[in-house]
């Protein structure tokens, strides 16, 4: 019954998306036509219905209803409740339903709230949103129905991949999806504005919270995903330029460029066509990411070719939306009037420079990710990994970091290079000083040295916009920018430090053995069996002391899950202010010794603290913009009321 209710709600939501599309299109053509008032309510009800369908799926998973195919394939009655619930979106069908739900809720929200833009633009935006939504409804209902029943219920579910039974991963995919969906709203706004010739600062202000929100979620999603890979996969690395990682990075790069471009449009009425273009690209990258992750093309191009239904579906959707949007862009871009002018040495100039750099990095990641898939289709297998991505991305990242450090000091429209020459010289000295120091004191690689040097300069440079300002009266949005830029410096410092100073130790130890890793002394006290709700494990008791200080305990495990059957290594971490000790237990050796893998990684948590700071910066900025919008709205209403009073 519950499953049928969910399915019915989903079909109704799809029907309402259809209505929203027709009503939107009709009222763009004929603003006072019979359907003109229907698009907004349709959007709201569609959001409610989709949310209802998703709640039904959660309910099924909470109950472990084994007559539902999806539950039987992905859940197990012995799983902890939180993982039962997260199992609802830890699979293909459920995650697509989550995507559609969030998208419908976002559509409902703009349908209900957004009143700043001309009504015709809003109708076009809602129609676009419905058009995109319909594709995903079709995908869900025709090829990935999450509510499908089994002819005969099974006695027990298959369980969830143990790697996914982790609190971090329970919230990682939804976070990314919120980001993707936010970009779909930005895409709809961009097309709505383009179709109705309303590429104005007002449009940018309406679109900006969605871009900012999406960007915050993407930032958090990537940060969390990176940390998950770091502690769960047990090899001590935090980024491998794996296609799945790249799939989440590409929308972030596009969204970062879009975010800066939309700010220029809102503040200065410049970069009109560029903003629209980035809006289209950002959503394209979200869909590309979904295609890569969801189609199975990554496991093997051939596996995809054998069972291509879902992948083809997403690919067709991608073709329709992106091809359509680019066609409209090509036809309409000429009608978008050129925005306000500015010189090279201006805030806009710096932002344009960095947008071009971000786009170049995006192109490198995109081609590097897709190229092996392309050659594999022709029977040639190549691998593209860190040795390619790191240096090539650095070519464009380093100039970007340099401009990022001084750009915020420039004035809008027109400025002299002289005004920033002092800080520029100061920051250059910073870079050189740190570079020379690190080269002397360590045998770090060139990229790590440059990373440390630029991180130091950017950390200083990012704070300079606050110099000479009354900190209490500095707008929240400025604080947001400073925090986010500083966060980038912090993250970069963590990355470079991890690469330059990490120490690894592999030992085969028996209880009582002692070993040293950098400043740490580590003793293996013993190995004992432990049991969890759906696993058993061997657990090592490690006693670690930093430079002879008091000892702390680390307990890495080698776990065996029984449904599905699988062994995983659970790492153990000990964080200090200046780094992290990382321990993994490997396989046993016949003479009773046990393989241990230990790392001391100076300042590595800075990578994720930096990521959180970046997201916090985005959040401050969002709050700042929204309160300013509300204030403006309130003032306008007050003055309208006063005018009415005067007329009476």
């Amino acid at each position: 019954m519950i499953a049928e209710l969910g399915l019915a709600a989903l079909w109704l939501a799809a029907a309402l998306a259809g209505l929203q599309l027709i009503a939107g299109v009709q009222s763009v053509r004929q603003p006072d036509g019979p359907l003109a008032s229907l698009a907004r309510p349709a959007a709201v009800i569609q959001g409610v219905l989709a949310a209802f369908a998703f709640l039904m799926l959660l309910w099924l998973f909470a109950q472990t209803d084994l007559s539902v195919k999806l539950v039987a394939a992905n859940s197990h009655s012995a799983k902890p409740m939180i993982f039962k619930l997260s199992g609802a979106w830890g699979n293909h069908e459920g995650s697509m339903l989550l995507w559609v739900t969030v998208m419908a809720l976002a559509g409902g929200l703009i349908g209900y709230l957004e009143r700043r833009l001309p009504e015709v633009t809003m109708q076009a935006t809602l129609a676009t949103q419905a058009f995109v939504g319909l594709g995903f409804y079709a995908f869900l209902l025709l090829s990935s129905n999450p509510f499908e029943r089994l002819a005969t219920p099974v006695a027990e579910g298959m369980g969830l991949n143990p790697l996914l039974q982790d609190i971090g991963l329970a919230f990682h995919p939804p976070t990314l999806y919120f980001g993707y969906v936010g970009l779909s709203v930005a895409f709809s706004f961009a097309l709505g504005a383009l179709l109705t010739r309303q590429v104005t600062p007002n449009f940018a202000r309406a679109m900006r919270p969605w871009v900012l929100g999406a960007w915050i979620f993407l930032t958090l999603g990537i940060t969390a995903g990176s940390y998950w890979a770091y502690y769960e996969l047990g090899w001590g690395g935090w980024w491998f330029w794996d296609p799945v990682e790249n799939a989440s990075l590409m929308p972030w790069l596009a969204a970062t460029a879009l975010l800066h471009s939309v700010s220029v449009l809102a503040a200065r009425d410049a970069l009109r066509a560029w903003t629209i273009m980035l809006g289209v690209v950002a959503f394209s990258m979200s869909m590309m990411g979904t295609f890569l992750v969801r189609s199975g093309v990554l496991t093997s191009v051939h596996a995809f070719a054998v069972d291509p239904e879902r992948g083809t579906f997403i690919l067709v959707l991608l073709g329709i939306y992106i091809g359509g949007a680019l066609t409209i862009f090509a036809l309409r871009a000429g009608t978008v009037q050129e925005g306000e002018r500015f010189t090279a040495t201006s805030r806009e100039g710096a932002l344009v420079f960095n947008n071009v750099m971000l786009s170049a990095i995006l192109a490198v990641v995109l081609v590097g990710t897709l190229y092996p898939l392309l050659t594999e289709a022709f029977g040639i297998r190549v691998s593209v990994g860190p040795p390619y991505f790191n240096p090539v991305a650095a070519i464009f990242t380093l100039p970007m970091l340099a401009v990022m450090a001084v750009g915020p000091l420039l004035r809008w429209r027109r400025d002299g290079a002289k005004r920033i020459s002092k800080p520029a010289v100061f920051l250059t000295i910073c870079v050189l000083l740190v570079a020379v120091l690190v080269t002397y004191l360590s045998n770090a690689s060139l990229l790590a040295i440059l990373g440390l040097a630029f991180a130091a300069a950017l950390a200083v440079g990012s704070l300079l916009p606050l110099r000479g300002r009354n900190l209490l009266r500095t707008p929240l949005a400025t604080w947001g920018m400073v925090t986010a830029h500083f966060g980038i410096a912090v993250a970069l410092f963590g990355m470079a430090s991890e690469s330059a100073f990490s120490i690894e130790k592999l030992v085969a130890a028996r209880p009582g053995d002692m070993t040293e890793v950098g400043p740490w002394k580590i003793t293996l006290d013993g190995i004992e069996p432990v049991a969890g709700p759906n696993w058993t494990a061997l657990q090592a008791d490690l006693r670690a002391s930093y430079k002879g200080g008091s000892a702390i305990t680390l307990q890495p495990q080698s776990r065996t899950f029984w449904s599905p059957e699988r062994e995983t290594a659970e790492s153990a971490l000990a964080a200090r202010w200046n780094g992290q000790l990382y321990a993994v237990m490997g396989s046993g050796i016949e003479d009773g010794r046990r393989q241990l893998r230990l790392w001391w990684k100076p300042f590595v948590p800075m990578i994720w603290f930096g990521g959180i700071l970046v997201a916090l910066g985005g959040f401050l900025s969002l709050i700042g913009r929204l309160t300013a919008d509300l204030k403006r709205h309130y003032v306008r209403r007050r003055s309208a009321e006063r005018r009415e009073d005067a007329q009476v």
Partner: protein
Amino acid sequence: MRLLAILALILSPMLPLAAQDSMPAAPYANRQLDDPAMEREAQDLMFTLRCLKCQSQSIADSDAPMAGDMRHQVRIRLMAGETPEQIRSWLVERYGDYVSYAPRVSASTWPLFALPLALFLLGAIILRRRLGRKGAAGL
């Protein structure tokens, strides 16, 4: 008889692979080299070699027996005086380009290397057109 010979011929290349799972791990699969500088070289190289039995993992972080054998090879070859690039070439010769995460310039990979150059030029042109002129314009 001929059939048996053919069968043996087909199976013989698979023997070492089949034997791996039951044999003890190669000595240097999980044992570091005594010289820290050389071990660092080994680590750097191992992170750029693909584990052929896993999905998207380097041999440095894989538990697969085959990755252990490859780590063993990397370490003993370094000790024998080979350079990391020689070891990479040897592995590429044996397993194909797929094993190395560092693509080499070749007939099938040149676009990867042309791309950054093209982007650099394109970026320079865009920036020059948009920002180069005095009082240049918005996009």
